[in-house]
């Protein structure tokens, strides 16, 4: 515990003006994108490479596993008890795909068929028209059945007169085929050619090339596609006939997509790029309780992408959705004014050689002069010891001499937000690099498996470590958003800062371990990995729970 670190917090008094010298839009954008968990995908998607077995992890939503509120600093028993009261029910959700939702819809349609007395295809169109909302369909159906069929194009307006033949596909099937025609004159392309044509029972006949072009253009709309010449609907069979491939599938999927978008209270796309999973929250009633207790409804898709169901951001604990939204909003507005560029290269403070960060570790060693310094404050690493967070210690007495360097003067003038933003971003960058690093190590372990017969299970500690490290970094990252909105003078905030410091040290430790280059050594230090990863896990839980405590007690007041 570095009490000095706590004192240092007082240095970050909020000042409102800042000198926005250089404008860095790109880094600002990068940041907000990352905060949204978008660009992260390239890193996150490596998970499968590590073949992380989910069963190895407690399958929590990140909400109820943080009761392990262990803190080196004694915490008052009162707050500890209160925290234990704040447990929320587990979220009941399932991970679906557009395909599996569609299959459920088809199942429903097969049930409903008995009530409606029309063929599956027509009923499918009806459901599609009503955005797969049974109740709405039933309401409209009883009111004005015939009008509805005409409106949707399942029936010709002239047919309504008879009103008896509900099943439009009966007896008219023959009209819905491709016809081979000699010297057909198509009024769409104005070509005269020997070609296949298509027409519905309305008789509007066009060449197959035109029809195909027309249909292909509309497959992504999710809406019912009608005859080119009138409002009579094309059914899935017709669409497949016209395009010569199972294209109606694509149309059904786009229709399901709009269903998901329209039911965003219960359904949420996994926000990770190129992930097609959909989380279906069966019961949204507990969401209010989550919000009240400053928990976030974290969910996980079948690809192990974890995100917040409420705001569709990455896991943002200890920040709640509100802090997250405000922080991201603020960074969108203000990061454009930040007067420094975030990058992965820095000049060595001693010899000015350019150094590239090759892992998430903030403990830098210059390749030129071997100077060891901290990535964040660019100061000598020695006083940092095990806690990088000490790098916020500009004013502690024994550092007064160092405080004269221009870098530190600059750092001191960093305004409150800028400071927290920088901290936030450093963790963001580190997390990304950790994953890259982890991937490289993972490849080496796979080599070990092949050449030295290390079993797959045996190699898993590495994947676990990388994941733990990533989660620790993410929690640390978002903790700066919480710290930004917290009353710095409050004792619990100081404890929070201590927790940040501890997690940060733990994370740096583990990160350093992951930088080991030789695979054989990695295997040797397996126990080390287990211990350090376990420690990071504990520290992560503690920090998250402490942050939630700040929110519950109103010490963190996001405005």
């Amino acid at each position, binding site marked *: 515990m570095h009490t000095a670190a706590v004192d240092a917090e007082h240095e970050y008094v909020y000042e409102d003006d800042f000198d926005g010298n250089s404008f860095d839009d790109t880094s600002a954008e990068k940041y907000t994108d990352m905060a949204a968990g978008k660009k992260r995908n390239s890193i996150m998607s490596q998970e499968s490479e590590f073949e992380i077995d989910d069963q190895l992890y407690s399958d929590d939503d990140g909400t109820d596993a943080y009761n392990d509120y262990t803190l080196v600093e004694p915490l008052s028993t009162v707050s500890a008890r209160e925290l234990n009261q704040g447990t929320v029910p587990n979220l009941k959700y399932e991970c679906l795909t557009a395909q599996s939702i569609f299959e459920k819809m088809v199942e429903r349609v097969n049930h409903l068929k008995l009530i409606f007395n029309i063929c599956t295809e027509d009923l499918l169109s009806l459901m599609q028209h009503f955005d797969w909302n049974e109740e709405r369909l039933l309401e409209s159906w009883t009111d004005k059945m015939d009008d509805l069929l005409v409106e949707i194009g399942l029936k010709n307006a002239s047919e309504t007169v008879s009103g008896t033949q509900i099943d439009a596909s009966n007896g008219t099937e023959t009209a819905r085929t491709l016809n081979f025609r000699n010297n057909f004159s198509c*009024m*769409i*392309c*104005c*070509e005269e050619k020997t070609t296949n044509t298509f027409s519905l029972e309305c008789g509007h006949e066009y060449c197959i090339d035109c029809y195909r072009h*027309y249909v292909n*253009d509309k497959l992504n709309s999710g809406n019912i596609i009608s005859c*080119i010449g009138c409002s009579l609907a094309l059914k899935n069979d017709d669409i497949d006939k016209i395009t010569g491939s199972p294209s109606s599938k694509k149309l059904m999927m786009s229709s399901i997509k709009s269903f998901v978008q329209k039911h965003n209270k219960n359904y949420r796309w996994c926000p990770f790029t190129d992930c097609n999973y959909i989380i279906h929250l069966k019961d949204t009633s507990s969401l209010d309780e989550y919000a009240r207790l400053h928990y976030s409804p974290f969910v996980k898709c079948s690809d192990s992408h974890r995100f917040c169901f409420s705001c569709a951001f990455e896991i943002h604990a200890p920040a709640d959705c509100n802090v997250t939204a405000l922080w991201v909003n603020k960074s969108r507005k203000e990061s454009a004014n930040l007067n420094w560029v975030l990058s992965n290269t820095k000049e060595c403070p001693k010899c000015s050689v350019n150094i590239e960060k090759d892992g998430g570790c903030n403990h830098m060693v210059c390749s030129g002069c071997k100077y060891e310094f901290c990535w964040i404050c660019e100061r000598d690493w020695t006083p940092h010891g095990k806690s990088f967070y000490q790098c916020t210690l500009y004013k502690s007495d024994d550092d007064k001499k160092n405080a004269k360097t221009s870098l530190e003067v600059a750092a001191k003038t960093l305004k409150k937000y800028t400071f927290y933003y920088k901290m936030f971003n450093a963790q963001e960058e580190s997390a990304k690099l950790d994953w890259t690093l982890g991937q490289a190590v993972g490849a080496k372990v796979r080599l070990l498996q092949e050449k030295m017969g290390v079993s797959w299970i045996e190699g898993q500690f590495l994947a676990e470590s990388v994941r733990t490290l990533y989660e620790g970094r993410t929690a640390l990252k978002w903790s700066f958003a919480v710290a930004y909105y917290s009353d710095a003078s409050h004792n619990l905030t100081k404890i929070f800062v201590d927790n940040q410091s501890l997690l940060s040290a733990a994370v740096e430790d583990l990160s350093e371990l992951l930088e080991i280059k030789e695979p054989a050594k990695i295997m040797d230090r397996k126990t080390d990995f287990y211990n350090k990863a376990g420690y990071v896990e504990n520290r992560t839980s503690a920090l998250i729970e402490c942050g939630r405590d700040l929110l519950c007690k109103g010490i963190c007041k996001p405005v």
Partner: protein
Amino acid sequence: MSRAKRIMKEMQAVKDDPEAHITLEFVNESDIHHLKGTFQGPPETPYDRGQFVVDIEVPMEYPFKPPKMKFDTKVYHPNVSSVTGAICLDILKNAWSPVITLKSALISLQALLQSPEPNDPQDAEVAQHYLKDRESFNKTAALWTKLYASSGVAANGSVEESELYGIDADIVQEFESQGFAKDKIIEVLRRLGIKKLDPNDNNSVNRVLEELLK
């Protein structure tokens, strides 16, 4: 290429039907993307006797994608921008179908002049005018038709700006006598959607004054 064939056929169809009083011509013979179409204002509307010129851009994917149309002629109409000539009409957007032709689209524009859709306006100021005071709106629309859509009769210059926007000349004069500039008065009245003003309606008078003093 089918698009060229189709456009040529459409132009022929227009020529074959002189009764429709529609014309369709290339701006430049070497460029089949760009045409100008004309149609006549529907009778018994303020657009009667007008000849309306429409700029037509035919996209590569025509007829699967709609042509881009906008009025070259200034039109005073709720669904047409009085500044840019942009048109708000569903068949030129989502309701487009490949069976619609340039000619039928122009006929739809004609129909649009006949029956405006003030609830889906392109020009909010004009739409307000239309909804609030149809008689005054009709006068302004007819004036625009006379000024901009009539061949030969060049009445330009002799028209007061207030009249151009259907604003009662008396109230402009009233505010002018209080020392405000005419341009400014007209700008404020247009912005507030005020065409007429009862001198006893203190609320409205004050609102105008407030804006004028800003």
